[in-house]
């Protein structure tokens, strides 16, 4: 595991350049990083387990980190481990020059928590929970949401805390579906998702991970 740039054979490097949106330097950099991660594995393993991948600072604080690993993993065991090529795929999709199409495709798969090809309300709920922070923050959110609702109807404060919080969330989910579910089948599918995403001004600029 020297981690030097010359580790990758030249032909492979050029093929990787052909197949990803990365430049030569970026691929070499990625390879270096990957070798470092690989060195941390227990045995001589071609893949790097998800735990190790998630130690990367770029992914550490991402609420979707596990989804990202699962989406890009080609492992048969579905454990989210990444080979170098999967790793390159990941970086390519998140790179600066990747197209909106490929970015939105992977974003869809990341948000599709149960891998069933559509974003249903369960997926959206999970998504919103991820976005508002997973553990303690979520509770705080609920509290805040309660207050928010409480302002509207101050008499029912207290007992209806949880209900109104979930009500707010549900309202949010309904709004999402209202907007993006064009064929009104109760779920958001890929084409609808891409339609929505393609209009967004800052999706491409924020859907990026840089090593």
């Amino acid at each position, binding site marked *: 595991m020297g981690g030097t740039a010359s580790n990758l054979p030249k032909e492979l490097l*050029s*093929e990787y350049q*052909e*197949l*990803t*949106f990365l*430049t030569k*330097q970026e691929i070499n950099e990625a390879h270096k990083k990957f070798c470092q991660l690989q060195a941390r594995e227990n045995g001589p393993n071609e893949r790097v387990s998800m735990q190790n991948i998630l130690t990367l600072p770029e*992914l550490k*604080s*991402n*609420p*979707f980190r596990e989804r990202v690993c699962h989406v890009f993993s*080609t492992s048969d065991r579905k454990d989210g481990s990444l080979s170098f*090529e*999967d790793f*390159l*795929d990941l970086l*390519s*999709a998140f790179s600066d020059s990747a197209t*909106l*199409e490929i970015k939105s495709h992977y974003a*869809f*798969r990341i*948000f*599709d928590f149960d891998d069933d*090809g*559509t974003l249903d309300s369960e997926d959206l709920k999970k998504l*919103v929970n991820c*976005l*508002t*922070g997973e553990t303690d*923050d979520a509770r705080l959110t609920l509290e*805040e949401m309660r207050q928010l609702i409480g302002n509207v109807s101050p008499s029912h404060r207290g007992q209806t805390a949880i209900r109104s919080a979930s009500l*707010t969330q549900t*309202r*949010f989910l309904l*709004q*999402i579906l*209202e*907007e993006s579910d*064009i*064929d009104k*089948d*109760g779920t958001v*599918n*890929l*084409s609808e998702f*891409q*339609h*929505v995403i*393609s*209009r*967004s*001004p*800052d*999706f491409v*600029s*924020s859907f*990026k991970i840089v090593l």
Partner: protein
Amino acid sequence: MVIFSRFTSSWKHLRYFSIEVDEGNDNEFNLYYVGVEDHSEGEKEQQVKQEGKRRRERNGKISGRTASEKRSAVTKNSDKREKKHDKHQKTARERRGSKTHEKRRKRNNADEEVVEEECSKEKNVKNERTKTSKLEDEKEQGGKKNKKKSVKTEDVDRNHGKMKPRDCNDVPTKEKTKNRKKLETISEPESKSDSESDLESRDDKAVGVLSSLTPEELEMLKEAMEEKKKLMATLRGKPWPMKKKLIILRESQEFLEKYEGALGKGKGRKLYAYKVVMMKKWMKFQRDFENFKTACIPWEMKIKEIESHFGSSVASYFIFLRWMYGINMILFGLTFGLVMVPEALMGKPYGTLPRKTVPREEEASAMNFAVLWDFGGYAKYSVLFYGYYNNQRAIGWLKFRMPLSYFLVGVGTVAYSYMVVIRTMARNANEEGGGDDTIFNFSWKAFTSWDYLIGNPETADNKFASITTSIKEAIVEDQESRKDDNIHLTRFLRVLANFLVLCCLAGSGYLIYFVVRRSQKFALVGLEKYGWWERNEVNMVMSLLGMFCPMLFDVISTLENYHPRIALQWQLGRIFALFLGNLYTFIIALMDAIQLKRAEEDIVKTNMTIWQANLYNGTVPDNSTAPPITVHPADVPRGPCWETMVGQEFVRLIISDTMTTYITLLIGDFFRAVLVRFLNNCWCWDLEYGFPSYSEFDVSGNVLGLIFNQGMIWMGAFYAPCLPALNLFRLHVSMYLQCWAVMCCNVPQERVFKASGSNNFYMAMLLVILFLSTLPAIYTIVSIPPSFDCGPFSGKSRMFDVIQETLETDFPAWFGMVFSYASNPGLVLPFLLLLVLALYYLQSTSKTYKRVNMELKKKLQVQNEENKKKNKLAALKAASELEQATNAVGKHSNTDSDLGMNENDNSLNETQQHRQKGQKSRYVHPSQGQHNKDPHPISSTHTTTRPPASRSRAVPGHLPGNPQQPQRNSHSNRR
């Protein structure tokens, strides 16, 4: 002949084998395969199937070996065949034979085309070839197969959805067999030459084969290659795992390498090969150049580091800074290369002319640092300022037109800036997609609000909080049920706040005016008598105002109780107004100063004639032929040269602005951070989270500062050519300084704002500033006559007269005539009118497009709803039928197969409907349309437009849990 037919049959098995591997247990495929077999002459489908199965069982993994065996056998045969072919060319009978032979081969090719077509469809490559081959198929089978084929492709898609991991393993065999097929059918001799290192010999052989090919086959081969090339070009945009992409890439490359050289004949062949080689080289060069370009972008790593720590909004400031740096680089290149360097190299050297010499009374202090720091002394009489330039028409051996160049560079600087800013704005507007921005408000909040760049836990926490707030806000805004307790109080407070802000603005304006006037008084008396403060009063006051007024505004804005986003906009607007007001007061004061200087100039002019007269009178009274008395240029009296004064003021302003920025940075960020960090241990409250805390990076304030700085550059660059250089230096330093400051002593913002949303806002501000800063510059250039004894335009009544002069002297007479005609109001006015008309036309067309867009969207929605209803009905019907069927034959053992049949029919119907749907939905967005054909599990058609019906069908639930179970069983039963 017999051998050949054997070859075809074995080839078929091979194909069958490959497809079997591919589609495995799929039922529909068998159907399709039958369809293919129908037209293959005299072969029992059962037999073939069995053979194929046997072969598959036997071959297992060693298909490669068998293939190579077969290949060698085939090549032997084909060699024989070729010989025969040549030998019997003369006899008519054999010719007929060869004809049938050709025919058969053609048919084979057609078959192969079908298979290929499926592959290509899978790969989502749209090409014309499918059309042509479809036509051929229709000729052969009367379009009977087409239907089945379409069904089949749908099912392939579906299959892909089911077994993604298998998919990538399938590809190699498929591709290989494909290649092999090509090899065998098209160029048999070539396969023999295993040692094909020599391209020439291979080509010769290939040509030998190619000559025996029909032009159609050649055409097909070419098309196949084109397709491969296209595939290779678009491969990186495919959402496939790398393994699959790699395999496809290698296969296509192999294929291309094999046949690239073989196409074309004689001269054309060589040309083709040459073209191919050049293409490869060009691609490689392009890639390297791309790498080089990215390596050349400065500060990329720095910005990325900041991006990962602070999210994209802070990084957007640095990207903006870098963009600005690029623009200033160009401006600097223009002024430096076309104005400063020619004057320094080819113009008259220092000390030859009064304007190029430090006057006698200033000589003593001309090298003092304090004077130089103020850009007086030697700095004032150098290429850095307008006054130094000579009005000589052409300088040096190049006959460089200096005044003209000076004028054109001034105009070009502004024109270039306009162009760049507007172009960037237009590009940003394009990215925003135009029009209906608010309809996906909630979805965007859910789908795009996370900034994937954030790598810092603290920033992530802030982001979580801000997303939560924004979601809540969105809900509240949507409900519109927010009731203010006391609307009157809020209104009153807001009015009060605005009143206070106006007072601030007016006060700062007056202060600047007052200070500038006072400084003029000082200047009249002579600056030497005053201290440092009096000399730098104007700049210091302006910088201090720029520093403290925003804080004041911030305090005032807490009165207003606005929503944070709106509050930010107000804040930005106020700071903008403050800066603008200050700048304009400064300019108005400068105008006054210019008037004073011009009055002074008149006095100097009259004095000058007296002085000259005295000079001549004193020595040589009336001998005009005698050489004029040489007076040292430093002693010659001179005018005040208001242009240099203006330039000097701007330079000083920039310098002091830069200094205040840096000092604020050091004190406000660095020392605060140091204090907080080290005093925290011995303080009575928590400094880090309590009152002083660490500072946040103020994106909007910094951007505004940058914009105004640039405005000053644009304003002053005409009178001080050194300004772009100075600004370049400043930007360079602040890039490093601010990067360092952000990384070491700032904390992530609590309110994380989106970067790109405000991009165009900043650009619009930049445009406004650009316009406002060019106004005074243009005014001075057009309406004030230049000084009589300094600058490139001295002696002219107006600066733009230089154009007239050039037209008259440097261009032929007819050009001047044409120009004068063209500038005639009779021509200019219609031209302007035309421009206005074009503008109007473009605007109205864009409006129409917007409306059409909306209509299409509505239409789409309606259609989708209709489709949904239809699907639901069909699905319900199918479900009820299914129920009946299962009820009726509940006890029979073959329930499963029946069920499977029904399911198949249903899915067939469905897939067709989906196809229609997919075609319709293609109008939505190009990317959507493409994805309908995507083989990927999630993007495939059946998932994208799967109606809820499929789920409702599962509800009657004979087999709860997995609705796909019966289908699979039925497949195995049938087989």
